[in-house]
């Protein structure tokens, strides 16, 4: 046991002196990721929110031809910006601006008065998602205005306007800012898990490929210490780095997300120390499995560079369940809590939403993750006994 401790201490000491790996572990991951994700979430909130409720600006060419329509639109938070332009100029203007442009043709008023379909042209570049949202909203507003006129016409002719509405369909939009941001939120747990694994990468690779390439593996194997203990010490060191990085990352997220209106995402507005600690403890059981998995993969490679490539690819494996979860819209179930990394995702999400999962679910997640870790740690230890390790 003492030798495990000796190896652990030495690995940490070496890592702390290696500026490059320290930078990756403690700065890039924990600071860059939260900043990145924070920005994306921030954009998602602004984006989604503004289109559906906020005021939108509509450029109108020949506003004087449809004053009542525009008055109507103004009541629904549409800011009308009249411009002087013919059709050709209007199209050119559109190329320079992002928002939609409404062109009112010369015969609009006359046809409306005559009870004929009155033409309107709504120019918009719908490849921009926010423009798409605005066009939808404008179309329905203009449709609403048209519907009002239609009903008035029927009433004027002594007909019941309800004749025009044989079916009353009520589409109920159940989308919430929360569900719209589901993918973005999924990225958050992805970022936490990925950053955590990343910080164990250097030591995990160093255990086999690094030691071998440096020529220090053989001397190390001649000390009177069980080979397993050497690996355990190294994996433990990787775990310590992962834990430090996990704590830093979650703390950084807590700070970042506090500043960007969490409540609008349906998340617990209070990403305080309690939630942060919950996330750390939820992810904790995944650490040994991650360290051992990376060590295992690295031990099969022939060089440090090769190890970096393969272990880098392996880092993607724990993220696959997260992608499935967001595409399929998976909800926590006992069976799914037995999938490491996916269960951590559920735990993180539930904590952020302020709806903690049942204790049993958390227990399943911890137990399965730790059991997987135990198996992988054992295998990594066994592999260190292979002669082929020497390369």
């Amino acid at each position, binding site marked *: 046991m003492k*030798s495990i401790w000796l190896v652990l201490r030495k690995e940490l000491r070496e890592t702390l002196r290696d500026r490059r790996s320290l930078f990756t572990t403690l700065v890039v991951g924990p600071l860059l990721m939260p900043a990145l994700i924070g920005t994306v979430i921030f954009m998602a909130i602004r984006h989604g929110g503004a289109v559906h409720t906020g005021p939108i600006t509509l450029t109108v060419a020949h506003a004087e031809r449809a004053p009542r329509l525009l008055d109507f639109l103004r009541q629904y938070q549409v800011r009308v910006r009249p411009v002087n332009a013919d059709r050709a100029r209007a199209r050119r203007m559109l190329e320079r601006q992002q928002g939609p442009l409404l062109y009112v043709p010369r015969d609009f008023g006359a046809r409306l008065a005559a009870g004929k379909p009155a033409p309107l042209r709504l120019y918009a570049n719908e490849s921009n998602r926010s423009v798409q949202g605005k066009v939808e909203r404008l179309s329905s507003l203009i449709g609403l205005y048209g519907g009002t006129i239609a009903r008035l016409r029927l009433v004027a002719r002594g007909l019941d306007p309800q004749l025009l509405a044989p079916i009353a369909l009520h589409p109920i939009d159940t989308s919430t800012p929360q569900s719209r941001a589901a993918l973005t939120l999924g990225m958050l747990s992805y970022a936490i898990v990925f950053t955590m694994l990343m910080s164990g990468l250097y030591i995990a690779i160093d255990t086999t490929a690094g030691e071998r390439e*440096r020529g220090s593996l053989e*001397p190390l194997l001649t*000390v009177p210490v069980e080979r397993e203990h050497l690996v355990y010490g190294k994996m433990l060191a990787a775990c310590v780095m992962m834990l430090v990085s996990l704590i830093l990352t979650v703390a950084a997220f807590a700070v970042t997300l506090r500043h960007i209106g969490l409540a609008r995402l349906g998340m617990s507005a209070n990403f305080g120390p309690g939630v942060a600690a919950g996330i750390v403890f939820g992810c904790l059981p995944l650490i040994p499995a991650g360290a051992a998995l990376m060590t295992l993969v690295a031990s099969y490679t022939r060089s440090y560079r090769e190890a970096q490539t393969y272990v880098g690819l392996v880092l993607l494996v724990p993220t696959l369940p997260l992608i499935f979860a967001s595409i399929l819209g998976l909800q926590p179930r006992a069976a799914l809590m037995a999938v490491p990394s996916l269960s951590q995702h559920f735990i993180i999400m539930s904590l952020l939403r302020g709806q903690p999962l049942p204790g049993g679910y958390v227990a399943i997640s911890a137990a399965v993750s730790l059991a997987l870790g135990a198996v992988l740690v054992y295998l990594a230890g066994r592999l260190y006994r292979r002669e082929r390790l020497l390369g």
Partner: protein
Amino acid sequence: MGPGRERHAGMIEARALSKRFGALTAIDGVSLRAADGSITGLLGPNGAGKSTTLRILYTVLRPDGGEAWIDGTSVLAQPLEARRRMGVLPHGAGVYPNLTARENIEYFGALHGLSRAVCRSRAAQLIARLEMASFADRPAKGFSQGERVKTALARALVHQPRNVLLDEPTNGLDVMAVRTLRRLLGELRDEGRCILFSSHVMPEVAALCDHVIVIAGGRVVVQAGLEELKARAGTASLEEAFVRLIDPDGAGDGP
């Protein structure tokens, strides 16, 4: 011959070691002895099986056949015990780049179960003895080959092993470093330790060894004292003797 317990203490002994790597037979029936208080050279051309033999002796490889003992302790049955009894300088001599030479030495002392105080004093002694003072407290990442080998050597000796195994220790060393190494090996012999080192460099072996084991094509060709070897080959020059031993037909294109 019986099992490990009945072996002589105070020597390195191997009997009928064989090792294959896939289709390649690295060594085939290597038997040897290296006695306490003497320096034994394992001499042979590249690829003869020197490193494989040493690696089996220092427990990194397991032989396919045969058995070996360090001070009577079987390397197969009790590898940890055997490791305690030897200091090893493997080929390449890699050290930890972010630790200083002193820390590299002390780390191995600790892994050998020495207390912190003992590690410190042993490291200090070895640093003085190997003339490492000028670089002892610098991180090893900028070390020259000579500085690295010295560090690795000190690391191998920190637990004061009775047996010292060195795989091509003079590789890449300059003249001064080779001199320091020779002097050290001589001192270790005079302290009564058993020293076994491999080399393909003739003058080195001639200058250092009491005994020579010539190995070629995975087999021991001859095992004798230095003078006896020259006599047997019928020549005064060790180099000539060596060439005749490993290539008896004198074909000249090596084994």
